[in-house]
């Protein structure tokens, strides 16, 4: 045990020369005049950082990829639908009514524009009637009674040229109140 040991000592109160604390001392404290500016900047920086964090967390709720069932389907030949009828064969599976009249065919999406219930087609009264809050729509999909604020939406409809079948694409909707029902993709001429 020949090594010398340095006994531990209570460190002196004043900062040693060359230490970080001493440097700050030398640079001087934040002046009285600067203090409010520094403080405000610091608070703004904190608020901005928290806001950014909040935005990132909020963004987390919206996934980049959505796994949804296919919204595009083949709906047979135009001849399968008779004139003047509201066809309900795709309602269960795809949520679509196909309506055919003398001039055109169109596909209505079976979602009430009020609060998203599924209306029923009442053939006897010639209207779509929503069971939730009593909204009523004409065969054209235009609302006429109850709380619905706007007509039903049409889905994109076109003929597949390879086999002559109707294709209905729910991925694109047409709103009457935006004047989109004149769009050639929103109906089929027959």
């Amino acid at each position, binding site marked *: 045990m020949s090594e010398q040991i340095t006994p531990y000592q209570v460190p002196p109160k004043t900062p040693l020369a060359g230490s970080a604390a001493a440097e700050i001392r030398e640079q001087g404290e934040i002046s009285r005049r600067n203090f409010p500016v520094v403080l405000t900047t610091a608070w703004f920086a904190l608020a901005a950082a928290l806001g950014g964090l909040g935005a990132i967390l909020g963004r987390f709720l919206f996934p980049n990829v959505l796994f949804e069932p296919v919204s595009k389907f083949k709906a047979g030949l135009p001849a399968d639908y008779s004139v003047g009828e509201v066809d309900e064969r795709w309602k269960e599976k795809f949520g679509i009514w196909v309506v055919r009249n003398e001039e055109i065919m169109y596909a209505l999406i*079976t979602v009430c524009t009020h609060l998203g219930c*599924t209306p029923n087609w009442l053939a006897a009264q010639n209207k779509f009637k929503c069971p939730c*809050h*009593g909204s009523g729509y004409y065969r054209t999909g235009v609302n006429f009674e109850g709380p619905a604020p706007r007509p039903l939406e049409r889905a994109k409809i076109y003929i597949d040229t390879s086999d002559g079948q109707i294709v209905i694409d729910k991925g694109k909707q047409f709103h009457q109140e935006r004047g989109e029902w004149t769009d050639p993709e929103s109906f089929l001429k027959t």
Partner: protein
Amino acid sequence: MTFIKDFVDVLSGSSISFLLLTSLFSFLIFFNLLDGRLRSKGGSVFIGFGLLFLISGIFIRPLLYLAIAYLVLMFLLANLGPRVWETRTGLIILVAGGGAFGLSMLDPQFYLIAAKPDNVPIVAMIFLLGFFTWVALRKAYLNDRQLLAGGIPWEKTESDEKLFTCPDLVYTEMLCMIVLTIVMIVWSMALRAPLEEAANPTSSPNPAKAPWYFLGLQEMLVYFDPWLAGVLLPTLIIVGLMAIPYIDTNPRGNGYYSFRERKWELGIFLYGFLVLWSFLIITGTFLRGPNWNFFGPYEYWDPNKLVPLVNIDLSELIWVKALGVALPKIWLIREMFGILFCLAYLGLPPLLAVGPFRRFYQKMGPPRYYVGTFLFLIMMALPIKMVLRWLFNLKYIVHIQEIFFNV
């Protein structure tokens, strides 16, 4: 018996009972709980309502029924006076209410709806609300009598007396827990939790109802668009509730039951809580059937009931019906009247501040006064829109479809 059922069915037309309750509460504010006599001002308001119903009743039958019910109630209240708050009267009311309910359960249609497992808690809630409202007002009446005689409220006689938490409070709590546990177990064994068919996104049940505590909001949806009834108004309800302690600066009535010292606060709160919230929930639960149509308590829920819904916008009412011209193309001009009406309605506070509400304005100071009256006006917008709907089939006051802004 059939006559009574018809009477009740017609009377419970939501518009009707709503008016009944509305007027009843406007009356309660003026009603002097202490001596049971009608105050001159309140009395005339009250009698005015009765006369109005009576005269309209000559033309519209339901209103005649309403007038009868209203006058009977007025007569009872005016004559019973403070005896309403006696335990004996309370028991009689309870027995009468329970009896009426029991008798009604004999009716198959009533039974079908009232005994639905999910509706049982709401039946219980009706009785609990009635009971506790009565209890609170009774205690308020007893305290008011003391205060008027120069005494102190009952709670104050005991407030300096302190008990040990252990055992007094701890044992009360334990007893409550045991009773509640028993209630929960018995209830759970007696009634199955409802489970319907598996979810099917392509067919809506008829009627499709929100959970019962949101049925007041769903009822509001009949009168307002979702952005108002589903988003803005609920937000304002919450904000309004939270604002209460900051708007109400009345230092009296803190920590004891009292009515005289807080007439306006209690009147407005009771109106909002009992009529606009609870009563609408009860309406939505028991009186709204298939297609969200209105059905009286004994009426068969016919899914094919035809109710013509031909509601009309204010713009159409004025431009087409009254002025006989076509609707203007530009929405600002088309909706001019509606927008003016809304602005005038929300512009009422400053006018009221120099008019009938001067007293409140001076007592509360501008910030409290304006926030308070704004919230109050928003609250009253619901019954106002309801009345407009029943009277004129009015759909929207402002209808700007271009930006989905419908009021």
